């Protein structure tokens, strides 16, 4: 056995995050690890990457005990990790990123020609020949950046490669190249530890599936016979029936009409209307212009043309403040960079969008916080003064939603509300969306998750390359049809 973990435990403070991980794995396999948020996946990955020390237990590699002294040590010993958050330097070229720390030199100076040749060779050897080695990282698409990241991990010729949610930001053909690469790595005898929330891909790709729950492996499944439902049940520890609530039946008159909205280079001529109490989803592949569209509707980006009318009047929503006053709220896709002030307290974050006038009422702010934490059942009790970064992803999301619900919106825009969220919490989010819609709120939901986009919504708008290509009633459409429109299958 090439990698053996025995009784790995890890605690942070009083919380035991890993409660004895046992694992034996051989080279040349793809081992998938799935689990709900908070199951301990990140911690396990960080221990293998040498980023955090293990609490107790034994790691053996090739029969010898392994004592990792840090990330560099792990890489030297043949374990490379590609994290979900990319670690490339945005201002440098692909070549510099790939060869960071090992740039070839001649007479003590960097030999750029040799460096570029080496980078080209590396990219070609992992099947990413399409990436230009002279390009600057920040000018590449997220998908290409991801390829560079993986290629970088392969520079040191690892025996074990840990991939943390590698597919989260990819779609379409990029996904196919990722899968092809993983299979190629397996064929080369590398042990791939593959962490993902996408259950179908795990079933397709993995040789073994391990279910992590509450800091320990609870089951191992054989991908050839396992099903998604089985995995969800094991991850959640209980049957989640009816993840998606029933579709709504009664709708009010249109509350928002978008006419011919255009932003050069991002999307053009988008028109649709949103009814009261309706859940409208916008589906499309990454890069179809969905986030840009909702941010423009919200006034966070300036439209080049077109009109957004809220209620009866055509409103010029060229700033978020005006959009908020018209009853819009936007829960952005990226919690950490645009949704929250991570270093500030839960209390500050919840009250951020409702600060108006000359003086604040501290009592009102306190009661706002208490009410919202209660309503959305944010987990740690009395977390008002805790800084938001201390909370789990799901709880952070609740803080963002609390902030926006306090503005008393009539239209709630949710951009990828369930990205990186486990099934149990998803179900909770879906229930909440349904509750809000029942109260008469209109929900505009951007989603890359096909099942969610179809099952959660009353209508689906499909976007491709910045255009609205189809509007479907969710009840009469199926996922394949929606996907076909999104990738252009029905075009010709």
């Amino acid at each position, binding site marked *: 056995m090439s990698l053996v973990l025995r009784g790995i435990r*890890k605690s*942070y*403070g*009083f*919380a035991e*995050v890993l409660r004895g991980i046992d694992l034996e794995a051989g080279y040349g396999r793809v081992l998938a690890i799935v689990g709900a*948020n*908070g199951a*301990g*996946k*990140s*911690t396990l990955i960080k221990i293998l990457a040498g980023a955090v020390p293990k609490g107790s237990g034994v790691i053996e590699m090739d029969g010898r005990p392994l004592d990792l002294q840090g990330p560099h040590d792990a890489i030297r010993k043949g374990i490379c990790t590609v994290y*979900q958050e990319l670690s490339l330097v945005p201002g440098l070229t692909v070549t510099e990123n790939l060869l960071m720390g090992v740039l070839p030199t001649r007479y003590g100076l960097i030999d750029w020609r040799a460096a570029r040749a080496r980078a080209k060779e590396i990219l070609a050897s992992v099947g990413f020949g399409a990436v230009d080695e002279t390009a600057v990282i920040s000018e590449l698409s997220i998908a290409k950046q991801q390829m560079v990241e993986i290629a970088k991990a392969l520079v040191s010729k690892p025996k074990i490669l840990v991939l943390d949610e590698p597919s989260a930001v990819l779609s379409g053909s990029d996904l196919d190249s990722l899968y092809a690469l993983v299979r190629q790595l397996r064929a080369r005898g590398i042990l791939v530890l593959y962490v993902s929330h996408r259950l179908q891909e795990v079933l397709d790709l993995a040789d073994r599936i391990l279910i992590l729950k509450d800091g320990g492996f609870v089951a191992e499944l054989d991908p050839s016979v396992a099903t998604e439902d089985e995995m969800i049940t094991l991850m959640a520890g209980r049957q989640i029936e009816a993840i998606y609530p029933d579709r709504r039946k009664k709708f009010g008159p249109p509350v928002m009409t978008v006419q011919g909205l255009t932003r050069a280079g991002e999307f053009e001529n988008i028109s649709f209307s949103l009814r009261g109490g309706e859940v409208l989803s916008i589906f499309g592949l990454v890069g179809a212009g969905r986030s840009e569209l909702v941010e423009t509707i*919200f006034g*966070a980006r300036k439209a080049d043309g077109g009109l957004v009318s809220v209620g009866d009047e055509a409103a010029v929503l060229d*700033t*978020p*403040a005006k*959009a*908020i*006053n018209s009853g819009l709220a*936007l829960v*952005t896709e990226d919690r950490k*960079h*645009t*949704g*929250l*002030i*991570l*270093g*500030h*307290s839960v209390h*500050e974050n919840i009250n*951020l*969008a409702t*600060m*108006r*006038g*000359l*003086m*604040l009422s*501290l009592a009102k702010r306190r009661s706002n916080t208490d009410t919202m934490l209660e309503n959305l059942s944010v*987990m*740690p*009790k*009395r*977390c*008002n*003064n*805790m*800084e938001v*970064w*201390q*909370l*789990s*992803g*799901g*709880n952070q999301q609740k803080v963002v939603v609390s*902030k926006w619900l306090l503005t008393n919106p009539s239209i709630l825009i949710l951009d990828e509300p369930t990205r*990186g969220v486990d099934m149990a919490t998803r179900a909770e989010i879906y229930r909440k969306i349904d509750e809000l819609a029942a109260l008469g709120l209109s929900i505009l939901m951007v989603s890359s998750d096909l099942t969610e986009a179809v099952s959660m919504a009353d209508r689906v708008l499909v976007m491709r390359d910045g255009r609205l290509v189809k509007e479907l009633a969710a009840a009469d459409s199926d996922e394949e049809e929606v996907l076909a429109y999104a990738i252009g299958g029905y075009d010709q």
Partner: protein
Amino acid sequence: MSKPGLAAQAASAPQLVTFRHGRVEVRGRDVTAPLILFTVAASLAIIANPLTNGVFFTGNNLTNLLRQMTTIPGLLSLGMLFVILTGGIDLSVGSVVGFSAIIAALATVQWGFPVWAAFALGIGTGAFWGLVNGTIIARFKLAPFVVTLAMMTLIRGLIYVFSEMSVSTRDFPAFTVLGSALVFGIPVSAIIMVGFFILGAVLLNLTPLGRSIISIGGNRETVRLAGISVSRGIISAYVISGICAGVGGVLLASRLGNIQPSLGSMFELDAIAACVIGGASLAGGKGTVQGTALGVLILAVMNNLLSLRNVDSYWQWILKGIIIIIVVLIHSAGAGKRGQ
């Protein structure tokens, strides 16, 4: 991915006092910084008398200490705090002090303004320079360091345009009243400073403007999407800094009675130091008025002690540098463990 350790937080959050990651928390609120500051301030107070053979705690010295700390670090640090909270920095405050002082003096001595109007003019020019700084930084999205560095030299140059030589206000007793008057042994200028600190605390904690300023430093994009004008917050912070420097300049001019065109050089450094000692983060989004007040006190007491001991001024600089680094190290000791 969820942050591990959540269960522990859930369990420990309700406790009154907790120690975690080297931080002390009371009811989940991090109180490490104020604790450190109190310890430092208390230690200074304890060693002060033995160190100075009993001179420190005399009425005369305390009056003197209060008067000296009013402008620098006092008022300048308060203004600087607001700028630092937005994630910026204001290197021009020293020059603004000199400018306001010289304008107020010239207005009284040469231009025939009544003293109150001269003071108002001095403070007004401070606000003006803050407005210029803030507007350039917010509208053109330039780096605060560069903009205020440029303004620092520009304003200093302008001072010499107005007066190449020092201006004496000794013939205008009304001009010197504010800087030297005492009420029950307490300098009026220090009372004004305390008033400004109270106003500053109210502004920062109880107004939407104050919360938006600190939030901008925490995450500008989140603030923008919350419908808050980022430009307005940034411009306000620099105007506050300018007003504080203006008031500081006028009070200093009033105390000195003889204003050199070089007045205020290097003041920005002590102002920044007091904020940092007080726990403010130069990255923005973190800092309190109370902390800054303690930072001001610590810096001022330190200066005073070293002077009373007749330590040479260059040794004072060296010691001050060392102490700033030590305090900042203590502040960051636990903070380094946060997050990823």
